[in-house]
């Protein structure tokens, strides 16, 4: 009996397999990091960075048929559509109507590629070109229309907890509050708001996936988001524009795992004063005040 008590205590402190899986709707993924495919200097670097990130899901954009980048490369020649689940975005859309159009085009493209990412979309309805912050009203309208059209919507949101909650209530499969503006590298600007988003979105629905999307500048930003209890982090520029994207991708992967483990382990409370790690008993030295 004593043995099994020890064993069960050990199990409590061990991360269960379920904790290691990111569940979004009916889909399950090993990695909690979702990475973008934009802004890379060349496709070879992108391939290596995606590999180093450990991501199962990668985002793409829908654009007019300028098929090649400045090096004469096409994304689809370099992206392994059998390995990755592709999450098409509606980046560049400023109205719900345009976002719905782009989402449908993305779904059509993924159907043609026979990729499991068809039927889901990373919804962005942006408010203005300078901040690229989401338009809450347009995003809400688009979520309703896309859900009615059979999409699983991962909705990019501000970190406003009520705005995020309304998107969930409208049927979004996941809400993705921004850490800070897209590509800004400012990290999680308002951790208290992200914590409130998590609390409201997961109230009575602990498994509802909340992914911190945008603003990641370096590995610690990913860890902070994950320590707050986010289910995952989505980033692009932080890797693609690092001096060494492949190494940064590895750092992001490790940071994501570290943050998740820390969240599940339970951090200690913050205290005003120190608590000694070594015992006072048996100290041979002079102690001030004693």
């Amino acid at each position, binding site marked *: 009996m004593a043995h099994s008590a020890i064993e069960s205590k050990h199990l409590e402190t061990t991360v269960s397999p379920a904790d290691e899986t990111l569940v979004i709707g009916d889909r399950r993924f090993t990695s909690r990091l979702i990475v*973008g*495919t*934009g*802004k*890379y200097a060349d496709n070879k670097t*992108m391939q290596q960075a995606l590999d180093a990130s450990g991501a199962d899901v990668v*985002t*793409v*954009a*829908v*654009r*007019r*048929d*300028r*098929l090649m*980048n400045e090096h004469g490369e*096409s*994304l*689809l020649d370099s*992206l392994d559509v059998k390995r990755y689940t*592709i999450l*098409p*975005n509606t*980046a560049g859309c400023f109205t719900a109507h345009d976002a719905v*159009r782009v989402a*449908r*085009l*993305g779904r*059509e*493209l993924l*159907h*043609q*590629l026979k990729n499991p990412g068809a039927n889901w979309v990373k919804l962005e309805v942006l408010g203005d070109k300078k901040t690229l912050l989401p338009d809450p009203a347009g995003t809400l309208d688009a979520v309703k229309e896309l859900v009615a059209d059979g999409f699983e919507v991962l909705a990019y949101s501000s970190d406003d907890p009520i705005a995020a909650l309304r998107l969930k209530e409208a049927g979004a499969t996941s809400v993705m509050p921004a850490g800070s503006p*897209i*590509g800004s590298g400012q990290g999680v600007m308002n951790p208290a708001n992200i914590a409130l988003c998590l609390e409201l979105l997961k109230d009575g629905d602990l498994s509802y996936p909340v992914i911190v999307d*945008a603003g990641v500048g370096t590995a610690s930003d990913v860890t902070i988001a994950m320590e707050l209890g986010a289910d995952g982090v*989505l*980033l*692009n*520029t932080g890797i693609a524009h690092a001096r060494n994207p492949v190494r940064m991708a590895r750092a992001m992967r490790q940071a994501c795992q570290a943050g998740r483990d820390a969240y599940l382990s339970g951090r200690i409370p913050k205290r005003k004063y120190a608590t000694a790690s070594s015992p006072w008993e048996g100290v041979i030295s002079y102690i001030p005040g004693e």
Partner: protein
Amino acid sequence: MRDSGRQGLYNARVEVMINGQKQVIPNSATVSQLIELRGLVGRACAVEVNKELVPKAEHSHRALAPGDHIELVTLVGGG
């Protein structure tokens, strides 16, 4: 005369907007023929005509009309 008339009809060309640019294409060309003309056969390519998606299954019988606004899109790197 009849032959040249028919020829004229066959050669009739119409103006449409493709990806925001004016283009002249053969009269009554289908979406499939347009994809062929643009060298996109075998490529992932989604098509919208007048802001409505035309699924791939309809490409071969959807004829384009003068003044149509056509978008031909694919996937590119993005975040």
